[in-house]
């Protein structure tokens, strides 16, 4: 099961492509888990490119975004809806820092 870890800050689509470049070109039936606990801030384009690369282009059976912020969760859900892959996205929001 492929795993990726997001950086502390993410901005561009190029950055998301670089992160996913090492993944196989296709992994149908694979579940991809992305650890987002470090990611403080992100652009919506970065999150959209991540969803596109993993669910649309590589056709993973499921993308699990784990421990992401409320806003990243929002961006991911919007992106998955727009791309018609919402049923293959699971988002787990991290607890708010006290």
């Amino acid at each position, binding site marked *: 099961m492929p795993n990726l870890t997001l950086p502390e800050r993410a901005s561009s689509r190029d950055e998301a492509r670089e992160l996913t470049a090492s993944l196989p070109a296709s992994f149908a039936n694979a579940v991809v888990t992305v650890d987002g606990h470090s990611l403080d801030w992100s652009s919506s384009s970065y999150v959209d490119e991540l969803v596109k690369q993993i669910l649309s282009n590589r056709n993973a059976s499921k993308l699990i975004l784990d421990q992401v912020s409320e*806003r990243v969760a929002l961006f991911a859900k919007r992106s998955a809806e727009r791309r018609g892959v919402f049923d293959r996205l699971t988002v787990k929001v991290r607890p708010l820092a006290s």
Partner: protein
Amino acid sequence: MFAPQGSLTLSTFDREVQRLGPLDLSNCGFTDAFGLVAIASAAETSASEGQTVVLTPRNDDVARYHCRMHLNQILEDPLGLSLDHYQVVHEHDQTDVLCELTRFDTWQEAESVADLVLSRISGPADVLETVWLCLTEACNNVTEHSERSGFTAAQVYEKNTVSERIVLAIGDAGIGIASSLGQSLGPLTNRAAVEMALEGGSSSSDDASRGYGIHDMADAIKTLNGFLLVRTGDGVGTVSRVGYRTSKSAAGIPGTLIGIQLPCV
């Protein structure tokens, strides 16, 4: 181009940009971060077209501010503009409120600018998150679509008061939103292009699910009761807590300017 006779700011830009003529800052009375980015973009276009520009305000305070914000450094070398008569100012440490005018060409440089701004300001987490979102989305649009360098500047106003706010500005003298979207959608008016950018879902790429960057920025700004201005050519778009509206200005500008104001408290 324009020759402002008063303040050149996020809130006065539409009035001042209608004072048409060669770029002339002689009578410029006040400038904010947005005005600086507008000047830099206009100066770059003027210089590339061989037009004469007057970049020194008569008002010493305004001239010092432009110098403190590095307008002269940014424009002097690459454009060959002579700004010798600008005053040299001692740079007091105001790094908690100022982020000087910066040129960027790549997403890495754009991200560095966003990092710098975030290292200099403080505020609630949702404001900082929105500052990052806006700077990275807008700067990446410049590097991906404008075909020119971008400029950005930021400043906090009325720090430590209930009115504390940050103004962010991002601009370029590039092809503009209408020409960029037109590559996939055909000819568009500037106003229609602004409307499409704010509504989201229109992109110059062949990916039908792209084109939501400005829409997502606008959504986050509206949630925080902030203000967004998008200017491209003669197209104008504004977003505030009451919604968004678009219009056609009597005066066009080269490229695209984006100005954002967010409350910091």
